């Protein structure tokens, strides 16, 4: 689908959508959003780009094999789940910093858990779509 309009649009949409997906991820705890939706949006940003420019081009931008995102995300989620052990609490207990951070707000173990989910979702979606695209 080589269309100038589509290509130009997706070039600018990619960073915007990515930023938006992070925004969705972070606001999830108070307002609609979260890691899962955020991850899907980020994945869609890349897929849109790959539609416009082809898979090779997108892969050269990402630089990283999306497959690697899955173990990274899983590790992050599991470590976040395990982290309460260090302070003597059961698995998956939410632990929080007392003071909110600037821009991000309250930071706790469930934020990292959600980021882990975010990464896994991106990795999974891109792996599936990219491998389908490649085999066709």
């Amino acid at each position: 689908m080589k269309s100038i309009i589509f290509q130009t649009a997706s070039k600018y949409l990619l960073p915007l959508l990515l930023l938006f997906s992070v925004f969705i991820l972070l606001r999830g705890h108070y307002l609609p959003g979260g890691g899962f939706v955020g991850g899907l949006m980020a994945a869609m940003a890349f897929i849109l780009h790959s539609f416009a420019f082809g898979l090779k081009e997108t892969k050269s931008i990402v630089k990283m094999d999306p497959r690697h995102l899955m173990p990274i995300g899983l590790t992050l989620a599991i470590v976040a789940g395990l982290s309460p052990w260090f302070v003597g609490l059961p698995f998956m207990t939410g632990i929080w910093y007392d003071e909110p951070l600037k821009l991000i707000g309250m930071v706790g173990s469930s934020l990292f858990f959600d980021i882990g989910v975010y990464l896994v979702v991106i990795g999974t979606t891109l792996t599936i779509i990219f491998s389908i695209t490649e085999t066709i």
Partner: protein
Amino acid sequence: MIFAVISGFISAAILPIFSRFNKNLVPKLYPFIPLGIFIYLASYLHKVNTEGAQFWSYTWIPSFGINLDFRLDGLSLLFGLLITGIGTLVFFYTSYYLKEDKYLDRFYGYLTMFMAAMLGLVISDNLIVLFIFWELTSISSFFLIGYKNDDPSSRKSALTALGVTGFGGLILLAGLIWIGFLGGDFSFTELLNSSEIIKNHESYTWIIILVFIGAFTKSAQFPFHFWLPGAMKAPTPVSTYLHSATMVKAGIYLLARFTPLLGGTDSWNWTLMIVGGITMLYAAIHSLFRTDLKSILAYSTISALGILVFLLGVGTEDALLAAGIFILTHALYKATLFLITGIIDHETGTREVTSLGGLQRVMKPVAVAGYLAALSSAGVPLFLGFISKEIMYEASFHYGKWAILLTAALVITKIILFVAGFWVGVKPFTGSLPDEHQSAKMPSPLLWIPPVLLASLCLLFGVFPGILDRFMQAVFTSILPGAPEIHLAIWHGFNWVLVLSIVTLILGTALYLGLKPSQILREKVKAFDRVAPIQLIENIALGFQKFAEKWTGFFQNGYLRNYVITILLFLTVLAGYRIYDGVDVHLDWSQISEITPSEFLVVVLMVTSIFFAMITKTRTGVIVALGIIGLANCLFFLYYSAPDLAMTQFSIDTLTVLLFMLVLFQLPKNRSFSTNKIRIRDGLLSLMFGSMIAILALEVFEAPSYTEVSDYYAENAYLLAKGKNVVNVILVDFRGIDTLVETIVLVIAAIGVFSLLNLKLNPNKKT
């Protein structure tokens, strides 16, 4: 104590790293692990003999009553010493026996893991912990039996062994949990107090059936015995270690351990007596028809295990004492016989008893070990075997009404085992040395010292049985609490039992001289193979396989449309039956909110798209129409205040459309469309399914709704989890484990898609 148990697992775990660093050091260092534990355990001998059982406890999962409780009493110590003692010898023996093997380090890893699991099994005092170690022995023995992994028959034997023992293990788990619930505790020592409660409970029969299946599969009792001869595919050190002295005795250990808890009832005793009796006779007779040294040993081992089960079944004081002593006796002589079989195999390259002879000229110490072990196995006076045999006969001889039958069975078994022992321990060494084995040499001391050591113990304990007195007393007491005092002696006086002993020896000698092992005998009994348990069970397994093939072929026919039809039809029939049974559905208009114009518009949009999807002739048209339906659905979520759901569904729908486009875009144009007949069929099915869902939805409204859970989440989302978006808080906090597992599922799905698409079964064929 916990260190003694887990040191084996730790050293098995670090072995891959260690062997990369220095591979040759592994066989030199690892034998010292069992040796160290052996010395450690032996240091408790005095304490256990004088003070009774020793206890250790480490908290593990206290909320389920599962703790790493260890108990070292006479029985555990006997097994512990056998495991580590014979283990030490086998470890040293292996370092030479498999010297040239390229996976020797791996072998030590499995062996160490097995030893640790076995040790944990015999000293754990908690039923669940016991089960965990029990399964670990099955798993590690799977690796050991299948060690020669390029040999298909070896892999098959490993699978059979794992299948049988693993199956038994699961059944055992059910029994253990049942016992735990009835007795109110998983700790064995605590359970002993509630022995009467369990024995008098109505489910007692079920419990002992479950425990029996566990023990019989592990200890190769009839009809589960067939995995053991197959397991002889393993290298000889493994057979020595697992299949004579340790693993197969785990079932015996379990039965002996549970005797004070569950035993003493008629059903317990008679089952054990019958199963043990059949096994010992059946396997003993089988061993006469074998010519492979290891096969002979395998069947004689099964027979010996049968004797042990039988003795535990007889259950009198004498019988339990005999069982305790026979465990030790059998381990000593059978391990010796296995080790010398390994040496013979190693030096001559054959295990065919018919072609062996005269080896004593080239390997005197090995021959001596063989003679000693065979004599102990035969129960010749001055050997440990004699003492255990005397007490055995004593036990069966005084069993009242059935004494003659039981004693006869025991005597016949013993006579045949006499012959089997001589075939392995004496026959290869006597007579003339065949020409093809002239080149056989004296093996390395690492090979012949272990069997000689074990064989001399048979003689030492036989001549001075007094040194075993106190230890055997401790073993006896742990099988039979409050056991009378014992004194082992060589001479029991002249009585009927002695006469039986002499008869055994005379008939055994006669049979040995009269019956030569030969292939012809084997051929003659081939006809009965068809009804042997192994054949029956293999047929059952094959039947399963055929059934699964038919089943899969029918349902998994590869046409997506057929899958959809199957699923919809099944659901419709299932739920339709439920509705047919009678449901009370009525619409309460007052409860239904008013329809707004925008909602109406969305419905119109959906219906239009559905019809468009039905009549359009291009694929793109269908995809777009379906996409519109999905998105319109999202709007509904939005109207009914589920923004999170709407957002997610929106993204998913978009992705689905993209995926469809990606795949279907590449396909050629539709050639033919469904015929009208098929369309009508599909339409009817959809209508049925749709109306069924509608009725179900209405029925759900009828049911009273409980809001406690959602109220709890709504109230506590901010208080406990500091979040204002309840949906997200549920996802990442309240039900975080669900999410975690779901992400793992996602990853598995992605890996599945990736590997399926990149799978190249035929490397020459381009996809």
